[in-house]
C-alpha cells in the first residue's frame, strides 16, 4: 500500500488470543424460549414501548420507538407474545435492572412484511428516519445511534469516511470473521454511508494481524465502482479506537472536546456497515449480531445471535467448562463483568469472554505509585495518568479536570503496564462519576435558587401591586373625599412600572451573568455525555422559560 501511515502515541501489545475463535465458521445461535430486549441498548434516550403485555409480535416488528434526537428503535428479534414490560437484569456495569420487553417466542420465527429501501431515490432525511426506526446503532461497542452519525449536518458533506476493522481488543474476533465472510455486504453498507455523507475519500483500516480479513475486503473493494482504500494498520491496542484509527490513517487528531466530524471525518465499525446493508437492501432491522464466545469454553467461536438471547445459552453452546471464574461482556481491556448470566445479548455485545483463573489470574495486590511514568508512555490520549491518579485519590477533582480527566478514553493501557498494579482506570471512573454527580447537584441547586429568586421577585411584585392598588384606592378615596384633581395619581403607576422594569432588567442581567460564569467543565466530555447534558440543559431551559412567562405577561399588561 502506498499510503503513508502515522503512529499514535502510546498503546500496548497484549497477546491477541484471536486464533482461539476466528477459525471456526459463524454458527447461528438457536432461537431461545424467551427473549429479553432492553429498551436502553444505545447511547441516548431509551426507546419508548409500542406494544403491550399479551400482544403478539412478529420478527422485526418495532416494539419500542426512538424518543428524542439521540435514540433509536428496538425490535422483536423473533415472533411470539409479549409477556412482560418490566425491569430485568441487563448487561451494565452498574448491575442495576432496566426496563425490558420480554417476549415468549412461538418458534415460528415469523417475519413482519419487509422490503428493501431504494436509498438512492429517497431523500436523505427520510432514509435517516427509516434507519432510526430500524434500530441501527454502532456495533463497535459504543452503540451510538447510526442515523445521527449519518447526518453530515450543516457541513453538508463529510469528506472522509473511515470503516473501522481494527478490532484491537484481545480475544474478540466478530469483526474479523464478519470481514472474512461478509465483505461484500460491508462494502454495500459503506456505499450507503458514502451516499448519505457525501464522502469523497473512503478508507478501511484493518489491523495487520487479520490477513484473511484484509484479503477478503480488498477483493470485495476491487469490485466496487468507487474508490476504497483497504489499509493494513499495525496491530497495537487501542489502534481500533476511532481516534487512534483516524490518526493512524490520516495523521490528524480530533481536537479535544470535539467530534471527528469537526475535522471532516466520520468513523463506522464494519459491523455497523454490514447491519446498514441488511437494513437497506433487505429491509431487516437490527435484531441480531455476531458475538464472539471465547476464553474458558470448549469451542470458542462466533455466533449469529438474536438480540435478547440470554448469555448462558451461548456459553452452553460453546461448551462450558469447570473452573469458570467469571464472564465479561467485551474484551479483557475494556470489557465489563456480568453479574448474572441471565442477562441478554444486546446491540453492544461483541464478545462474551469466559474467565478462568488460569487464563485471567486474579490481579496482584496494588503497591503505591512509584511515578515511573510507564502509564504516561502507554497513554494513547497522551495524558499524565500518574498525576490524574494522584488527584483522583486525593479527591482533588478540580485538578484532575485541569489535567484533562475527561480526555481519558478508559482504554486500560495505563493499568495494563503499571508495575504497581494499580487499577488506575477505576480511579478515573470514580473521579468522573463524582464530578458528574456534583454537576447534577449543582444544576439542581441552580434550579432551586432560580426558583427561589423568582419567588422572592414574585412576592416583591405582589407586594408592590398590592401597595399600588391600595394607593390607587386611597387616592381614589382621597379624590372622592377632597375632590382634588388626581394629578399625582398618574405618577404612582408609572413609578411602579419603572420599578418593575428595573427589577426585570436586573434579573435578566443576573441570569446572563450566571450563564456566562457557568463552568465550562462539560467541554471535554465524550459526545454522548455532552448530548445527555445538552438534553438536561434543554429541559432546564424549558422550565426556566415557563418560570419566566408570568413575568413577561406581566410586563405586557
Amino acid at each position, binding site marked *: 500500500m502506498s499510503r503513508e501511515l502515522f503512529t499514535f502515541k502510546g498503546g500496548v501489545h497484549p497477546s491477541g488470543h484471536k486464533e482461539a475463535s476466528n477459525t471456526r465458521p459463524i454458527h447461528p445461535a438457536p432461537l431461545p424460549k424467551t427473549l429479553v430486549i432492553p429498551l436502553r441498548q444505545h447511547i441516548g434516550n431509551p426507546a419508548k414501548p409500542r406494544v403491550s403485555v399479551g400482544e403478539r409480535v412478529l420478527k422485526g416488528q418495532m416494539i419500542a420507538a426512538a424518543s428524542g434526537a439521540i435514540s433509536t428503535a428496538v425490535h422483536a428479534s423473533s415472533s411470539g407474545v409479549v409477556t412482560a414490560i418490566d425491569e430485568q437484569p441487563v448487561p451494565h456495569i452498574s448491575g442495576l435492572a432496566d426496563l425490558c420487553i420480554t417476549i415468549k417466542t412461538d418458534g415460528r420465527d415469523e417475519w413482519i412484511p419487509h422490503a428493501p429501501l431504494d436509498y438512492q431515490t429517497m431523500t436523505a432525511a427520510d432514509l435517516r428516519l427509516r434507519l432510526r426506526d430500524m434500530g441501527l446503532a454502532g456495533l463497535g461497542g459504543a452503540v451510538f445511534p447510526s442515523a445521527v452519525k449519518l447526518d453530515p449536518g450543516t457541513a453538508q458533506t463529510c469528506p472522509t469516511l473511515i470503516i473501522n476493522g481494527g478490532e484491537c481488543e484481545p480475544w474478540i474476533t466478530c469483526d474479523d470473521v464478519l470481514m472474512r465472510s461478509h465483505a461484500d455486504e460491508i462494502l454495500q453498507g459503506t456505499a450507503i454511508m458514502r451516499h448519505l455523507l457525501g464522502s469523497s475519500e473512503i478508507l478501511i483500516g484493518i489491523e495487520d494481524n487479520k490477513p484473511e480479513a484484509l484479503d477478503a475486503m480488498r477483493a470485495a473493494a476491487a469490485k466496487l465502482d468507487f474508490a476504497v482504500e483497504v489499509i493494513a494498520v499495525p496491530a497495537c491496542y487501542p489502534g481500533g479506537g476511532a*481516534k487512534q484509527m483516524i490518526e493512524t490513517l490520516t495523521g490528524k487528531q480530533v481536537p479535544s472536546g*470535539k467530534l471527528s466530524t469537526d475535522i471532516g471525518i466520520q468513523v463506522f465499525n464494519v459491523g455497523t456497515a454490514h447491519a446498514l446493508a441488511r437494513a437497506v437492501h433487505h429491509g431487516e432491522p437490527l435484531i441480531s449480531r455476531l458475538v464472539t464466545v471465547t476464553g474458558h469454553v470448549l469451542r470458542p467461536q462466533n455466533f449469529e445471535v438474536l438480540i435478547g438471547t440470554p448469555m448462558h445459552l451461548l456459553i452452553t453452546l460453546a461448551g462450558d467448562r469447570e473452573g469458570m471464574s467469571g464472564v465479561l461482556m467485551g474484551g479483557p481491556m475494556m470489557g465489563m463483568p456480568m453479574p448474572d448470566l441471565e442477562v441478554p445479548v444486546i446491540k453492544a455485545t461483541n464478545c462474551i469472554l469466559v474467565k478462568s483463573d488460569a487464563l485471567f489470574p486474579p*490481579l496482584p495486590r496494588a503497591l503505591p505509585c512509584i511515578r515511573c511514568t510507564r502509564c*504516561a508512555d502507554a497513554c494513547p490520549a*497522551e495524558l499524565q495518568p500518574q498525576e490524574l491518579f494522584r488527584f483522583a485519590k486525593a479527591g482533588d477533582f478540580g485538578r484532575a479536570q485541569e489535567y484533562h480527566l475527561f480526555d481519558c478514553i478508559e482504554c*486500560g493501557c495505563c493499568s495494563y*503496564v503499571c508495575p504497581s498494579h494499580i487499577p488506575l482506570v477505576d480511579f478515573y471512573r470514580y473521579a468522573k462519576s463524582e464530578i458528574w454527580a456534583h454537576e447534577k447537584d449543582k444544576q439542581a441547586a441552580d434550579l432551586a435558587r432560580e426558583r427561589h429568586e423568582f419567588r422572592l421577585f414574585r412576592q416583591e411584585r405582589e407586594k408592590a401591586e398590592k401597595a399600588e392598588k391600595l394607593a390607587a384606592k386611597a387616592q381614589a378615596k382621597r379624590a372622592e373625599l377632597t375632590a382634588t384633581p388626581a394629578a399625582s395619581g398618574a405618577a404612582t403607576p408609572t413609578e411602579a412600572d419603572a420599578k418593575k422594569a428595573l427589577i426585570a432588567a436586573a434579573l435578566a442581567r443576573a441570569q446572563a451573568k450566571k450563564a456566562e460564569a457557568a463552568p465550562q467543565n462539560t467541554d471535554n466530555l465524550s459526545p454522548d455525555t455532552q448530548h445527555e447534558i445538552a438534553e438536561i440543559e434543554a429541559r432546564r431551559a424549558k422550565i426556566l422559560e415557563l418560570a419566566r412567562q408570568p413575568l413577561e405577561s406581566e410586563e405586557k399588561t
Partner: protein
Amino acid sequence: MPSPFILDRSSVTQIMAWVLVALLPGIGAYVWLFGPGILVTLTLATVTALAAETAMLKARGYPAKPFLTDLSAIVTAWLLALSLPSLAPWWLIITGTLFAIVVAKHLYGGLGQNIFNPAMIGYAVLIVSFPVQMTQWAGPLELTSLDSSGVHLTLAQSAAVIFGSDLPKATLDAITMATPLDVLRTGLHQQMTGVGFEWLAAAFLLGGLLLWALRIISWQVPLAFLAGIWLTAGFLHFFDAGRFGAPWFHLFTPSVMLCAFFIATDPVSGATTPRGKLVFGLGAGFLTMVIRTWGGFPDGVAFAILLMNVCVPLIDQYTQPRIYGGARKEPRA
C-alpha cells in the same frame, strides 16, 4: 473487579531487581579497584535497610512481605553504600542507612511518597555530621601499591577496618588518602588519570545503558544530567583552564555516572514529564558543578539532587505536555 483484566508482567520488584543487576558491573569494578571492602559495606547497609524497613512497616501497620520483596530498600542501601568511602566505619554506614530508610522514606509515607531521594538524604546527613570520616578514602589499588606495603586488603582485613579493629600502621597510612573528588579539587588530577576511576565510571555507565535498553530509565534524565555537567564544566574550563578541570574529566567521575543513571533517575523523587526530566537533569548537572567548584563539600551530587527534588512539583506543573487533540500550547499559568 473492573477492567482491564490483564496485566503485562512488569512489577516494582522486577524494576528494582534490574537496578540491582545494573549496579553489579560498578560493584565489580569497585572491588577490583579498592578491594573487597565494599562488599562488607554493601552487606551491612543491606541488612540495616531491611531491618529498618521491617520495623517501620510494622510500626506503620503495613504488611511486611509485599513491601520487603519490592527490593526498594536494598536499592537505597546499595546506592548509599556506593557513595560512601570504601572503608567507612560501621556506625557511619548504619547511621546513614537508618536515616535514609526511617526518616527520608518512611516518615514521608514510605514507598512512592518520599519527596527526597533517600540515599542522598542519608549521604547528606553523614557528610554534614561526620565530614572527617566521610572524606577518608582508600586509594585505588594501583595507587596504594606504589606505597611500601600497599597491598589489597582482604575481605577479613576490610571488615576489621570497618568494624574498628586496629591495623598495622603502614597499611592504614596506605589506605587513607583524600577522596578522589578532593584530589580533583586540589588540582592533583593529573596523577589520577589512568589510575582506574574512569573504569569505575565506565562500569556505572555500562549498567546505566542496560537500564536504558530495558526502558527502566528514560534517556532524558541521564543525558540532561551529563549535558549539565559537561556544559557547566566546559564553560568554566573555557574561561580558566588552569583552575577548572576539563569537562570530560568531570564527566568521567564515578559519582557523576552513578548519579546520572541510578540516582537522578529515581522516579519517585524526580520529575515525571518528558520536558520536566530534561529540566531536572540539566539543573542537577549544573548544581553539581557549582557545588563542586565553589561549595565547601568534596562533591555536589547529593546536594544537587536534593535541591532539584524540591523543585519537582514546580517543574512538573510547568512542563505538562500537550495531550491528544489538545492545543499546541497549554495556556496554563
